[in-house]
């Protein structure tokens, strides 16, 4: 992982301000640490020599200790504020972008995007408020501390100076040795826990069939396998912490032994020895803090990567500016083909929907009927052919204008009321059955005074009686001059049509045909 994501730095002024502020705090903190060590050492050596510590030293010590308290306070508040701002901005950006993707892209990315904008990006908080300041401290504090040690005892400073770079060197070595390992381990762990949760999710099904007895043993097996895999990964993951601690504590020990020996021979004074002893661990502490915060930051960085991957997906249809001279509501599919999972669906749909008529698109599962609507709405660019609205090809059409003239009922409609915030919004959506949902959505589409109606299986989840009522209402709308296009395959729906068009899938090479079965 990159320590500071350059994209974040480029995109977010809040991050840049945060980094600047954290730099200032880290330098001040380093200075305070050196003052505390120097003055405390002076006081201790004075006391050991049975003299009163100097007043100036004590004042400086109190001030420096107070400064550290203040810096902690300021750093915390600043980190929190920056994290909130940055995360909010990212969440907004991702949401704004993802909702404009083409339907199939959105389908693919929806789960990821939902997780990201609701909880996923929140994981950036430890990265922004914990890891980044620690990173700056790891770069800025050791040199200042080193100068502090050097002023007291050059030999100790030399030991620290030699051992300190060992840490990043070892980190890089460990990183190189274990590269790819972590990803493979994580992958295996994800699969094992996926299998466990699959069994758990199947519990109601198994219980219904009276076969829930077996999987408990399997869950235990999977758990053991998961544990072994996880521990294998952790053995490597904790290596870097091990090296860090070993180098840090061993170096402190070396410094202590070194000055001890030189004290015996009078080569160094007590005060200088104490400064070196107090400051030596402080040179390594920022690196250890950084190591501790690394793992918490990883999740956030993964979320950030995921967010940037989503932002890089090109947005769906772009709107043109054209409007037909005479808006009539004539909708034309000309040889429209869209590449799907298995060949083209639709594979060359040619159809004409006119005002005053009920046109029904029919065909088997996966024939591309709903896709034909997506193309007609300008949400999806076809791989071949085009759609014309009153003679204007879709890419040239002003989509906002077009959408203001269409009432569309998708396959799984939302029950968002006519105006957000009205009473129905308080209805617990989960309480509604599929049929009730369908009816509410139908009410809304039929209430809209749009000249073009596109309805995807409008009578799904409805019983015969309601189906008949809906179809009658739709025929009524057509008679009043609307262009009504339905997707459906039930006999009642087909019977309500003025025109039935079979949508057929095919493969990419064979030019498909839209057949008019019944005119």
């Amino acid at each position, binding site marked *: 992982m990159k320590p500071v994501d350059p994209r974040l730095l480029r995109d977010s002024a809040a991050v840049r301000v945060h980094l600047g502020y954290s730099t200032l705090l880290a330098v001040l903190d380093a200075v305070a640490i050196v003052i505390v060590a120097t003055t*405390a050492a002076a*006081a*201790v050596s004075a006391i050991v020599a*049975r003299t009163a*510590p100097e007043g100036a030293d004590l004042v400086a*010590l109190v001030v420096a*200790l107070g400064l550290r308290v203040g810096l*902690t*306070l300021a750093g915390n*508040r600043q980190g*929190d*504020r920056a994290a*909130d701002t940055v995360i*909010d901005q990212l969440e*907004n950006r991702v*949401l704004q972008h993802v909702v404009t993707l083409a339907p199939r892209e959105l389908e693919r990315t929806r789960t990821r995007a*939902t997780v990201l*904008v*609701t909880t996923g990006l929140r994981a950036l908080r430890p990265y922004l408020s914990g890891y980044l300041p620690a990173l700056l401290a790891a770069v800025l504090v050791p040199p200042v501390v080193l100068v502090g040690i050097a002023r007291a005892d050059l030999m100790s400073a030399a030991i620290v100076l030699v051992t300190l770079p060992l840490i990043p060197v070892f980190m890089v070595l460990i990183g190189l040795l274990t590269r790819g390992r972590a990803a493979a381990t994580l992958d295996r762990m994800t699969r094992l826990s996926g299998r466990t*949760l699959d069994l*758990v999710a*199947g*519990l109601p*099904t*198994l*219980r*219904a069939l009276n*076969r829930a007895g077996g*999987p408990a043993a399997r869950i*235990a097996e999977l758990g053991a396998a998961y544990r072994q895999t996880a*521990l294998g990964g*952790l*053995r490597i993951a904790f290596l870097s*912490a091990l090296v860090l*601690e070993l180098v840090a504590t*061993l170096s402190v*020990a*070396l410094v*202590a*032994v070194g000055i*001890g*020996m030189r*004290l015996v*021979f009078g080569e160094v004074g*007590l005060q200088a020895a104490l400064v070196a*002893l*107090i400051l030596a*661990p402080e040179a390594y502490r920022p690196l250890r803090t950084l190591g501790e915060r690394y793992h918490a930051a990883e999740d956030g960085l993964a979320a950030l990567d995921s967010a940037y991957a989503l932002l890089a997906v090109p947005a769906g249809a772009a709107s043109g500016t054209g409007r037909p001279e005479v808006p009539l509501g004539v909708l034309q599919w000309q040889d429209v083909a869209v590449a799907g999972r298995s060949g083209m669906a639709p594979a060359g749909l040619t159809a004409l929907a006119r005002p005053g008529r009920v046109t029904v698109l029919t065909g088997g*599962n996966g024939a591309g009927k709903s896709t034909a609507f997506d193309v007609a709405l300008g949400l999806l660019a076809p791989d071949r052919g085009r759609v014309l609205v009153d003679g204007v090809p879709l890419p040239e059409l002003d989509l*906002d204008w077009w*959408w*203001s003239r269409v009432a569309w009922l*998708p396959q799984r409609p939302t029950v*968002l009321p006519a105006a957000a915030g009205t009473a129905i919004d308080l209805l617990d959506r989960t309480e509604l059955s*599929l049929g009730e949902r369908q009816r509410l959505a139908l*009410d809304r589409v039929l209430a809209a005074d749009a000249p073009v109606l596109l309805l995807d299986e409008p009578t799904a*989840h409805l019983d015969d009686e*309601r189906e008949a009522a*809906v179809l009658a209402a739709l025929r009524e709308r057509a008679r009043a001059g609307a262009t009504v296009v339905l997707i459906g395959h*039930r006999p009642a729906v087909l019977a309500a049509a003025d025109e039935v068009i079979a949508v057929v899938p095919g493969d990419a090479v064979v030019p498909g045909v839209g057949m008019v079965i019944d005119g």
Partner: protein
Amino acid sequence: MVESLRSALELLRARPGRALLVLVLGVGAQLSALGLAAVAAWLIARAWQMPPVLELTVAVVAVRALGLARGGLRYAERLVSHDLALRGATDLRVDRYRRLAAADPGSVVALDRGELVLRFGRDIDELTALVVRAAVPIVVAAITSLAAVALLAAISLPAAAALLAGLVLSGALGPIAGARASRAAEQAAAVDRATAAGRAALALDHAAELRVGGRLTEVVAQAAGARERAGRRQQRARARSAYAAAVVPAAQGAVILTVLWIGYAMTTVPLTEVRPTALVVLMLFPLAAFEAVGQLPAAAQALVAIRAPAPLLPVSGRRPVELPEVSVGCRVAIVGPSGSGKTTLLLGLAEQQPGATFFAEDAHVFETSVLENLRVGRGDVTPAEAVRALTAVGLGGWVAELPDGLDTDLIGGAAALSGGQRRRLLLARALLAPAQILLLDEPTEHLDAEQGADLVRALLDRESGLVAAERGVVLVTHQLPPDHRADRVLRMDMSTSIHL
């Protein structure tokens, strides 16, 4: 919070040997660090007195050994504690699974699968993470802190008291106050966060529909607005957690000044001989002692952040219905508008009628092979039987085209299938199950009208051969073809009207 800590400690108690090992390693690692600080201070002070070098040998060796020990012990502690936590997680999962598998079928069958996955996945993961992040560090810090205070008490009781006070402040009060404040911040923002999440999910789930309907910008802006409100509330509540974090350096600073003062006071009392080694250890040791409580703020955060796991059972809200008489060999169709309780009725029948098995509309498709998915109903289904059943429900061609035929893994479970294929596979599973009476909930929804009608006809026709004549079929459907051959059709009513 206390409750979750207790559960985490219980996981530790379940394997006392390992738990003890974890504590020994953890305390050992911390004491190595403290020991290093104390011995190094002693070494410096003694060396300053210029004794024969030999007198320092033990201290020199000890300092180096302690420098090595800390890292190694900490590494071992982390591994053993993770091992312990993962074992605990598996035990807990198996135990909960066994309990549910033995529970009343009516309530288990109706459990929400997403909810189940959360309870078995996230909840248990969080609880076991507490072992590593909270339970172990808290116990280790308490033991180590006491050891540090005891060491100081050997030199000066007042200094030991000051250190104890400082450690309690920065190890307990500070972290708890900080964690509480950040939880309060979360709670203050919870309503707005939920609104933001709800609006975002709405926008993402129905982006195209909202966009065409001209409502998308509004919904996205609502999400952003709620997010901003949440942020503002959170900022206000978080201010306190910054103060809590500042408790640590404040307490440490106060202890440093106090021990300096005590050290000075000890030298000014006439006619007492204080050894310089004791003085230096007294005044330097508190600098290092605070490391013992360094992990506690994170531990407190983990404790406070954990959600109280919601109870899984029971499932409520089932309306009592009058159950029809059904018998082995019957062919019954149930029709009626959605929401009229057809599914509830089937669930009731499954409980009341021996040999009757409920096949849910959204039954689970396991992430395993096609054959194993059919064997969910009956373990000894042969490949030939499987192919026969799949052909009967119209999946013969599909399975023949699969790369590994019946042994093809359905990656992602239901996600590997179209809606229609899934429905047919579940139907094949039901046909192969040993049930005497099949209770089928909307077995043909999402199939093409004609194919769906054919299947319903065949299921309701004793002579069709799809279901053996001596087994019973009760099925719920929206679309009953007029020429069906069911013995009985039950129409369920609900007096609601459609507003058109």
